[in-house]
């Protein structure tokens, strides 16, 4: 249907109105950039913690005295194993280590005898690396931990202070890829025995016990059994964890922001385009085209081509810039809105794109844009051209 002279005129019109088109394209690209950035951030966070959550055990058993978390005796784990319906009982050792007042890291001890922990370790290390890692006193550190150590002249190893005041030298075995997990930047992974020494646990002590209950119906029953296992036992469920996460990320606020931006942006665009189309020059142009034998369809096609190219270009530009801003630059400024100050540094945004939402935004954007352009054009095109010609 479009022969090449039609296309010629289209490119000509793009070229002749280049300034205006570039302005509209850039304006729209900025809007799309903001929208997609917000989307990327909230999508990435949501994705990360869903992933994180899926890795979390169904229950964690801790011992709390007052408000304080105290070590558990590892014999409790054997009692838990005996509860019917419980699986994958894991003794865990972890704790915060403070390098100085402002910098801390999460130490996690890994027990290779534990099936799940060793599985996780296999994801991080190559097969031939596992043995040397466990046999030497060494650790795997997250990116921000590594950066801290390096800037304090510990590029190869670090001397930890144990609670009884001794120094413990631990080699840096590997640096975790920051994209591998949400919390990894702030993590130190080491063999469990070594971790106990630094965290300050005795041989027989552990931080807490993780376990799964595959049958959903048994969960509340097992929960009460766990709670009555010993005095001051605290049982932490996955559900509570989810709520905690949601409070932490406050991503609902982010979604609200998306909606707000959509509304403002669309309004601005509609007004702008209405304004430019109301300009009598374009009205007259349409009337001339019509008088010279163009059908309504021809005029609409020409204007659609113009708008579609603007929509497509600005969308690609905006989403690409958004991607760079969020995932390559780490979304400075915007990240603050989603994450509290405290978590900002320790969390890396993992590239993850929610295609469904992106497509929805595209469809919404394209239809609003096209209708804002084409409805006025159509209205001019269907009136008798004589009126606009004068």
């Amino acid at each position: 249907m479009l022969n090449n002279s039609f296309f010629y005129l289209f490119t000509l019109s793009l070229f002749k109105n280049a300034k205006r088109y570039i302005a509209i394209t850039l304006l729209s690209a900025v809007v799309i950039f903001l929208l997609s950035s917000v989307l990327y951030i909230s999508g990435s966070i949501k994705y990360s913690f869903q992933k994180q959550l899926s890795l979390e055990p169904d229950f964690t058993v801790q011992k709390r005295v007052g408000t304080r978390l105290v070590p558990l005796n590892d014999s409790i784990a054997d009692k838990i194993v005996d509860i019917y319906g419980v699986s994958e009982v894991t003794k865990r050792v972890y704790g915060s280590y403070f390098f100085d007042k402002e910098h801390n890291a999460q130490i996690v001890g890994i027990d290779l005898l534990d099936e799940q922990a060793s599985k996780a370790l296999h994801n991080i290390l190559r097969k031939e690396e596992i043995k040397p890692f466990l046999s030497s006193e060494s650790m795997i550190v997250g990116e921000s931990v590594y950066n801290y150590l390096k800037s304090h002249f510990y590029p190869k190893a670090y001397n930890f202070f144990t609670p009884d005041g001794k120094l413990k030298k631990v080699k840096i075995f590997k640096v975790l890829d920051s994209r591998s997990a949400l919390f990894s930047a702030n993590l130190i992974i080491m063999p469990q025995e070594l971790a106990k020494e630094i965290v300050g646990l005795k041989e027989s002590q552990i931080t807490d016990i993780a376990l799964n209950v595959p049958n959903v119906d048994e969960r509340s029953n097992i929960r009460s059994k766990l709670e009555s296992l010993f005095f001051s036992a605290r049982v932490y469920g996955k559900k509570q964890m989810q709520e905690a996460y949601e409070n932490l990320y406050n991503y609902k606020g982010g979604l609200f922001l998306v909606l707000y931006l959509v509304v403002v942006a669309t309004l601005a665009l509609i007004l702008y385009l209405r304004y430019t189309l109301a300009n009598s020059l374009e009205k007259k142009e349409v009337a001339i085209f019509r008088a010279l034998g163009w059908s309504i369809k021809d005029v609409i096609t020409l204007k659609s081509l113009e708008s579609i190219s603007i929509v497509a270009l600005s969308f690609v530009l905006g989403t690409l810039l958004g991607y760079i801003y969020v995932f390559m630059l780490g979304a400075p400024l915007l990240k603050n809105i989603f994450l509290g100050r405290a978590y900002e540094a320790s969390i890396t945004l993992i590239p993850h794109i929610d295609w469904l939402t992106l497509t929805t935004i595209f469809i919404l954007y394209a239809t609003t844009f096209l209708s804002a352009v084409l409805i006025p054009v159509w209205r001019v095109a269907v009136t008798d051209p004589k009126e606009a010609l004068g």
Partner: protein
Amino acid sequence: MVVVENLNKTYAVGSKQERILDSITLHIQKGELVLLRGVSGSGKTTLLSILAGLEKPSSGKVLIDSEPISKLPDIHLSHFRAKKIGMVFQHFNLIENLTLLDNVLVPLVANRIGVKEAKEMAFAALKRARIEHKKDAHPNRLSGGEKQRGAIARAIVAKPSLLLCDEPTANLDSKNSQSFIEQLMQMHKEGQTIVVATHDPIFKTLECEHRIIDIKNGKIV
């Protein structure tokens, strides 16, 4: 070629209907040159617009090349306009941000003619209108007479069967008006059917066969 029978056109002005064209009956043969004369407001532009299919009559019959144009749906009417009608508007109506050559190309796009051939045709039309040296100029850089020629080139580029000119000399000085009249005679000699709406006395100098139709208050007198 052109058959108009009992044509009426009314406009709604406020609450009442104003009759602009009143029972117009008119036959124009192929190759004829017709001058439509009348004072301002007598309905000349309205009649030309109806002949060009830019407006629908309120009642009556309009046949052009035996095509009942007032009854055509838009897509066919546009096609008809693109193929059969060339129009020179009172205010030229060139598109400001296109060059003269590209302006002349616009009707050919409607006719789905390929860009290379279209450019050749547009250039040939500019040549016939003796304005080819300004092909790359934009309308705002042209004088009234030059715009006029550009408008003529655009009107004849698709080789229409009917050429309509609305007040072609209204915006020209006497020298350019005279030159337009020469062009008109030339096109007439080539066999073009032409209708010119005007109240300019300069057309008295027209030295070729033509018919004058006087129109007054929407009626042929």
